[in-house]
């Protein structure tokens, strides 16, 4: 341990399930914690799920209690819409420069929603992967924490801005708000910067833009969620057709050196989970799962065994390498069945690309002086007080992320 003066504080970058866990664990043993999040809300990718493993809980289940713990803990300071700009200093005493983007809505906001009613301009709803629109002033999602609106000023005409301002009874809208830069002194940093779904448009042979019947697994989560764009209905985007057949395309971009070289770990289980979403809504729909290998780590194997008994589900060993848009709005997925040695052309109403996890930090990590592996994951350096947690460290499911968050906190408090 270094004898240099220590600030005793921990910075947690990323407010998803890993970051929340790390922040709470560090704060609950008495450290000062700064929790910063790029989005206007905490909860990260878990907030976007319909259900999550291991118990298939809705995200409100796990996130709400964590939000409450954060709110009640005076040791944690939270910052949304905030990103790390630079890091200097050394273990025990880092100086971190951060920037908070303007939210244009101050803490007077009560989330009454009058502004959104008055707002005339709309933007794609990023929380729902653009499957629906939201007003240019919006609450990111129903259980957003902090419960405060955000204004996308660039998407708002001046007339719209006036209307929005006029509608607010609490003087909460401040269109002159500027980006703010500030500095924190911390002893160690937990990097819980999470993941992004792999950009499916890069899968050129699957032509995801050729048909609205081709969706990603994360879009499926939003559709299945009650607070999603369809209110929980799984229907084909575009024509809202109820589906009679659906194909899941595994390893869409994962285990592929042209895309993500590694196995994203969660996609097989996500597909099994989404089979249950489909089955709940459509007891007789045909389900086709195209895979290279089915990877169901540990006790998840039981879940697989249960779903493999589904008489209307067919598992085909062979990766889908071509998708053809059909005139009736459906698609034909093409693979070689490696067991029979023949090609299969399966026409379906909808097709789900099981896209993988790409570390969200990416190249920026190197500029911040982090040790990164070849795939963009952060490699922990506990002796330096730089610790990776959750999906910033490796592709993982929710409960592994929570474990990883706790482990990161344990390391972080030793250097802080």
């Amino acid at each position, binding site marked *: 341990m270094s004898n240099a003066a220590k600030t005793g504080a921990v910075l947690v970058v990323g407010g998803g399930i890993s970051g929340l866990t790390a922040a709470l664990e560090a704060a609950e043993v008495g450290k000062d914690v700064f929790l910063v999040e790029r989005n206007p809300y905490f909860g990260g990718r878990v907030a976007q799920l319909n259900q999550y493993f291991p118990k298939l809980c809705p995200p409100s289940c796990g996130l709400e209690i964590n939000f409450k713990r954060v709110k009640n803990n005076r040791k944690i300071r939270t910052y949304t819409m905030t990103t790390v700009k630079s890091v200097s200093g050394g273990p025990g005493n880092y100086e971190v420069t951060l920037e908070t983007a303007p939210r244009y809505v101050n803490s007077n906001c009560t989330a009454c929603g009058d502004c959104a009613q008055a707002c005339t301009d709309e933007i794609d709803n990023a929380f729902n992967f653009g499957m629906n629109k939201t007003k240019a002033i919006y609450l990111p999602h129903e259980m957003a924490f902090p419960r405060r609106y955000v204004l996308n000023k660039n998407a708002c005409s001046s007339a719209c801005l006036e209307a929005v301002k006029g509608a607010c009874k609490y003087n909460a809208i401040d269109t002159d708000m500027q980006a703010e830069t500030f500095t924190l002194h911390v002893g160690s940093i937990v990097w819980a910067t999470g993941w992004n779904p792999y950009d499916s448009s890069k899968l050129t*042979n699957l032509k995801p833009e050729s048909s609205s019947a081709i969706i990603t697994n994360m879009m499926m989560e939003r559709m299945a969620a009650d607070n999603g764009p369809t209110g929980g209905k799984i229907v084909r985007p575009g024509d809202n057709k109820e589906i009679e057949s659906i194909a899941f395309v595994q*390893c869409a971009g994962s*285990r*592929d*050196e*042209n*895309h993500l070289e590694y196995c994203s770990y969660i996609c097989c289980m996500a597909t099994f989970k989404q089979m249950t979403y489909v089955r709940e809504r459509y007891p007789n729909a045909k389900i086709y*799962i195209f895979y*290279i290998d089915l990877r169901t780590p540990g006790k998840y194997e039981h879940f697989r065994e249960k779903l*493999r008994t589904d*008489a209307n*589900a*067919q*598992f*085909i*060993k*062979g*990766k*889908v*390498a*071509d998708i053809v848009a059909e005139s009736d709005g459906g698609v034909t997925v*093409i*693979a*070689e*069945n*490696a*067991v029979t*040695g*023949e*090609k299969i*052309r399966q026409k379906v109403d909808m097709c789900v690309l099981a896209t993988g996890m790409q570390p969200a930090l990416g190249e920026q990590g190197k500029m911040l002086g982090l040790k990164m592996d070849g795939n963009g994951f952060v490699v922990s350096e506990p002796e330096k007080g730089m610790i990776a947690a959750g999906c910033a460290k490796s592709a993982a499911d929710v409960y592994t992320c929570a474990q990883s968050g706790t482990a990161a906190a344990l390391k972080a408090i030793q250097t802080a």
Partner: protein
Amino acid sequence: MRYPAGGGQTITFQENNIVNMQPDIDFIKEMKEAGGDTLKKCFQCATCSVVCPLSSDKNPFPRQQMLFAQWGLKDKLLGDPSVLLCHQCGDCSAYCPRGARPGDVMGAVRAAAYRHYGWPSFLADLASKGQNLPILLAIPMVTVFIMWMISGSHVPEAKDFLDIGYSQFFGHWDFKLLPKTTFFIDFFMIPTAALSVFAAVRGVMTMWKKMSENAGVSETFSKPSPVQFVKEFLWPSVAEIVRHDRFKKCEANQDRVQGHQPLMWAFIGLVFVTAYSFFAQDFLGQFIEGMHGPMSMWNPVKWVANVAAVALIFGVGVLWRNRSRMEAEGRATKTFYDWFLIWMIMAVGVTGLGAQMFRLVGSPSLGYLTYYLHLVSVMMLFLYMPYTKFAHLVYRTFALAFERYRDSAYVKG
């Protein structure tokens, strides 16, 4: 044993029907050396079979062939028409998620197949390895040189050179029915060509038998007559080759057609010119004075010869450039198998045109040297045809015919 295979299917290996695997380690090594060094990277996702523009729904490739290669199942691969139906477009290698380069592996399997079907085997082994290049060059160089020495080491005067050209390369005698130079050329070229043709016929017949066995069509419903065979299977395959139908379906390396097509026409042109020259000089020449010696530059056949020579150099040049580029970009493995054929054809074209040029400018010593190298490279092309990449000329043609045959009424009944 029962293995669940998804969707309620099961593969059953009954006690009395055990699948007996005989991996051939040496064969795996051989393929790795011939450019298939990436074959072990394949994890059988089958992306390749789907992106392949040439593979059919009933017999997709190259996923299965990658598995056979990993297991060293030599018999399966050598008797598999898919190996030869592959035109190495490279789409499979471009999309392969593991960098296993199925296209290169298929090329390596073909190289191994030509070697194994080759006869005599010492010559086939010799022609399959780059380290033997000095010997491969020495055989024709020494042969032609010795012939030239025996014939009297003749080099013409500059004043006669334009008229007689290379018609007296191996000297001259007065026995008109068989000029001395023709005699000498026939003396080594005819046995070379005969060996080559024999080896190719023998190889194709062995291959056909193996393919029939593997496809389970040895007990055919009714056998086609030779005429039916040519009409229904061989001729449509040749027509398809000439049209470059499959080549044109390639996406990743589409520009190879721009090289291969002129090259193929050049060979057709040169076969015609050679046949004409033989007929005119060695047959008509017996009766009509003046048919001997070089053709007039105004003879349309001479034009065909020159157009073909230019097309040959252009075509092989395009292939040369494409291959260099693919290798530089890491899209193909550099192999002796691929380059030896490109070098040989380039040598034939350059020395052929060069010899004509030196004759026209009246430089006998340079001309004779170039003509000597021309004879050497032509002999190489003939001699090594059945064992090098040039063998695709016969093996692929018959594999295309086999594909038609396999799906025909003769087999299906």
